[in-house]
């Protein structure tokens, strides 16, 4: 009997050591997940795709009913907006053409704004709520790589955390911390741009923390739009992140932090676009990434 008691204790001890080793390994700074994990992700992803179709069908019915109620109001607003946009389309076309001509004269063919979109569908969301992750139905086979930005029509939602052959995992903006920063900017006239970093998410105010690194004279105003700046070398420039809600200073009054309301809805994500930055990721960008 004593032997069995000792055996039990022994097993629990070994289990504990394995636990610590596994956690240590998975939190270490690794580029992508290991082969076995990719195989598991592919297999589960395959099953999730099957399950997701009927579930989506049912939830769609409910959202459709909700949508019908607001249709009339929405239609009125959209009609108004549409008339505004008609004018803008012409303007944008002109500017684009001019931009292209100017670029051609300067021999600039690649820009940090250019990217190739990869369409993907969300097939599951992590049930563990501290870990803000969703799974997409496209993987390395479709050209998705780690650290690519993920956007919806409204704005940025996150970045690719890891990939397997046919699935990939996205870390949502709401789960960002100081290790997952985005170089961001608020566009102003005459090079007065306000630069900074998105450095995490504040649960209490439900907003992203935008740390301003280059102090500019002008005060930030509420409602100003924050975009990715493309200077981190990972994400392309010009992806909408959100709008400024409030500006607070830190306890010493040295740096200011803007609370930014994310532009995209983090809870109802169905279709996303994975952004493959065109500009080659060469060595100079690598070093930039480290600075980030």
């Amino acid at each position, binding site marked *: 009997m004593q032997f069995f008691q000792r055996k039990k204790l022994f097993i629990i001890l070994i289990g504990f050591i394995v*636990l*610590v080793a596994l956690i240590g390994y998975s939190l270490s700074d690794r580029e992508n997940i290991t082969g076995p994990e990719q195989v598991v992700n592919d297999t*589960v992803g395959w099953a999730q795709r099957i*399950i*997701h179709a009927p579930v989506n069908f049912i939830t769609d019915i409910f959202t459709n009913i909700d949508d019908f109620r607001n249709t009339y109001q929405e239609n009125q607003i959209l009609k108004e907006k549409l008339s505004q946009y008609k004018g803008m389309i012409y303007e944008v076309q002109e500017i684009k053409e001019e931009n292209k001509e100017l670029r051609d004269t300067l021999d600039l063919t690649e820009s940090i704004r250019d990217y190739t979109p990869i369409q993907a569908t969300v097939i599951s969301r992590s*049930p563990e709520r501290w870990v803000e992750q969703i799974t997409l139905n496209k993987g390395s086979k479709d050209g998705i790589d780690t650290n690519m930005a993920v956007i919806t029509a409204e704005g940025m939602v996150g970045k690719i955390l890891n990939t397997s052959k046919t699935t990939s995992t996205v870390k949502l903006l709401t789960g960002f911390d100081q290790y997952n920063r985005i170089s961001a900017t608020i566009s102003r006239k005459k090079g007065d741009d306000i630069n900074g970093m998105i450095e995490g998410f504040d649960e209490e105010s439900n907003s992203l923390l935008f740390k301003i690194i280059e102090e500019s004279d002008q005060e930030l105003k509420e409602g100003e739009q924050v975009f990715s700046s493309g200077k981190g070398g990972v994400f392309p420039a010009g992806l909408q992140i959100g709008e400024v809600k409030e500006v607070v200073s830190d306890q010493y009054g040295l740096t200011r932090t803007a609370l930014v309301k994310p532009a995209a809805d983090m809870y*109802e994500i169905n279709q996303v676009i994975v952004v493959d930055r065109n500009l080659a990721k060469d060595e100079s960008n690598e070093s930039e990434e480290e600075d980030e």
Partner: protein
Amino acid sequence: MKRLLLPLILFLFVVLEGVALELLPSNLVVGNLLIIPHWVLVFLVFLAIFYDYENTYYAVLYGLIFGLLIDVVYTGVLGVYMFSYAFVIYIIHGLKRMLHGNIYVTLILGFAGVASVDILIEFIYTMVGLTEAPWIDYFTHRLLPTVILNLVFLVILYPIFAKRLTRWGGEHLTKNNAL
């Protein structure tokens, strides 16, 4: 062939947990409450109480396998769910010797199981630095709603599986008690 049924059901629950947040009404999800579906664990509690004999540990083994699966697919931090599930199921397996398998005992053990698993996971995540939520917030915003909703799930599952698992246990386990 029949032996494959249990792993298949557990696998189905793992997959369903991934779409659970879409199935729940959205005002529950968007609000402050964090509801974590521990459906795999609830089913493992059933296994431990009704399926396993005193000297078989299939529920613990499945806890290890499917806990690891959840770690790999949904969190990326390996070992946390695996260890918590297996450990708690092992204790429940030990406790059932003293108690008779009926709905009340299942409810009590299910309550204890889900609560202790969630606390254990929260504890490990706090140690690792994955979460910094104060414990008071954790108890009101996460633990309470999680336990209640998982118990509802347990009550729904009870009439479907309680008798069936006892029968399957008898069929599968009499021939070899190797594990």
